């Protein structure tokens, strides 16, 4: 079944506009639980309370504020927050193109498939051009009152638009000190290299299945039927031997595995 578009707009490169539709590329399969009141076995409700008095504060009396110092808040009224909403537009402006490896993985947020809205020739021509040039476009647009920065990529013959996180939302490893402890020895590095080479492969997403999801659903179904499946206890971990001994043992057992495979 074809998915419903979540947004309509135009890709804008220079003066060229390509009408497109966006579709979520994600199919969420998380097993959804509700939070229940344990006694009544009913969904809980939420409210905001004044923690000192314990009194509920109704929605219309709630104000929003930013804490500038402990206990001191700048209060923002509804009209203040509305003034922050960017001007509405249907254009996804693409003004810059970069090689596909300059944006680190942690910046990619949500992917959307871009589909042509009407004329298909310009859409497929742009996808082909991005692929040929090995570039992704840096996109700016406003969607549902939010400003977004994104990356437009060719994925096969089609286009995908990712929303990107902003630099302030991503913690950088560069801001962190290197972990304490001594540097690995040459011998250990050589063995570790040998070990990862034995485990080296290509990334094939089909190799990985969410088996736990199925186990949880099976368990829920059993319980729904009135059964109470027995579950094994979780055992505590045991300690391991010295690093180079463990490395040597790992290499040996992996080699054995490969030989017998």
């Amino acid at each position, binding site marked *: 079944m074809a998915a419903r578009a979540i947004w309509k707009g135009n890709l804008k490169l220079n003066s060229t506009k390509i009408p497109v539709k966006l579709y979520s590329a994600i199919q969420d399969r998380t097993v959804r639980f509700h939070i229940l009141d344990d006694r009544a076995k009913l969904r809980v409700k939420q409210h905001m*309370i004044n923690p000192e008095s314990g009194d509920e504060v109704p929605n219309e009396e709630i104000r929003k504020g930013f804490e500038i110092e402990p206990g001191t808040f700048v209060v923002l009224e509804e009209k203040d927050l509305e003034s922050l909403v960017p001007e509405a537009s249907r254009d996804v402006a693409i003004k810059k193109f970069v090689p596909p490896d300059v944006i680190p993985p942690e910046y990619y947020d949500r*992917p959307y498939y871009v589909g042509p809205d009407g004329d298909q020739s310009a859409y497929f021509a742009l996808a082909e051009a991005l692929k040929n040039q090995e570039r992704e476009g840096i996109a700016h647009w406003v969607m549902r009152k939010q400003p977004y920065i994104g990356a437009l990529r060719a994925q096969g013959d089609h286009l995908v638009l990712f929303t990107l996180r902003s630099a302030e939302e991503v913690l950088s490893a560069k801001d962190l000190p290197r972990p304490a402890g001594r540097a690995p020895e040459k011998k250990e590095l050589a063995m570790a290299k040998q070990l990862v080479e034995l485990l080296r492969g290509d990334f094939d997403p089909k190799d990985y299945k969410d088996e736990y999801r199925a186990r*949880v659903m099976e368990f829920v179904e059993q319980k729904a039927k009135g059964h109470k499946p027995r579950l094994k206890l979780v055992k505590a971990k045991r300690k391991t031997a010295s690093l180079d001994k463990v490395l040597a043992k790992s290499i040996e057992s992996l080699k054995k595995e490969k030989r017998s495979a």
Partner: protein
Amino acid sequence: MPKRKRATATEEEEQRGARPMWSGTLTFGLVSVPVDLYPGNRSSRTPLRMLGPEGVPLARRYYSQKTGNDLDADSMIRGYEIDKDKFVTVTDEELERLAPEQSRDIDLRSFVPLQSIPPLYFDRSYFLVPSSGSEKAYRLLGETMKKNDLAGIATFVMRGKEYLVAIFSENGILRAETMRFSDELRTPKEVGLPEKTRVSSAAVKKFENIIKKHSDNTLALSTLKDEKAEALRKLIAKKKSSRKNVVHVEMPEREEGKVVDLIEVLKKSLAGKKKAA
């Protein structure tokens, strides 16, 4: 990002990074590296608080539809809705026991070239920090992956959900990117995108010229700005200097809702000191 319902104040604290979200073992071969997992993303540096009419910061509470009383963490349970308002309850312990033994560790069973994972898969980012005594093996794994341009791949179960992760080594730090499973990504066909039609080489050429003209080999990450947050900070600064809409309330020292500096927490854990409260 859709926001998930959070069950307790503790979970919220973990989300904000004051405490590790998960503590476990990273393994490669038979080598095990005990690690703590912390979030690597934060929602915003300018979080707004909900305030009462006099400016008192409010707290979110769950309450019973039946009695109207507030509920604490012990009086709440997870439920899967099998029929309208009919639930099968599942405890944290059951969820933990349901995880197969091998899924309780992050077992790196495969190492892949860094550029081989399409970004379509990436979801959220976390840092793995060595827990006491594991620094040596941690550094060994980090340096080995870095030198050989490899990322480690594993699946593991954390708090009632299985994750596919790619572990990257960056600046001596291990970063875990959770990934979507292949059945959580739609294909263009499933979405209903049309198949490629013939395109004129002139049209491709035209776009190639635009791309070439506006290409750059680098991108300053600082240009990836949160424009709305910047506008919000400007507005806050303006109001602050005019002392307009500024309220002060006397409050006892509180933990709930306190802004945690994730970088500070991580620095402390990496220095091998006791974690920040």
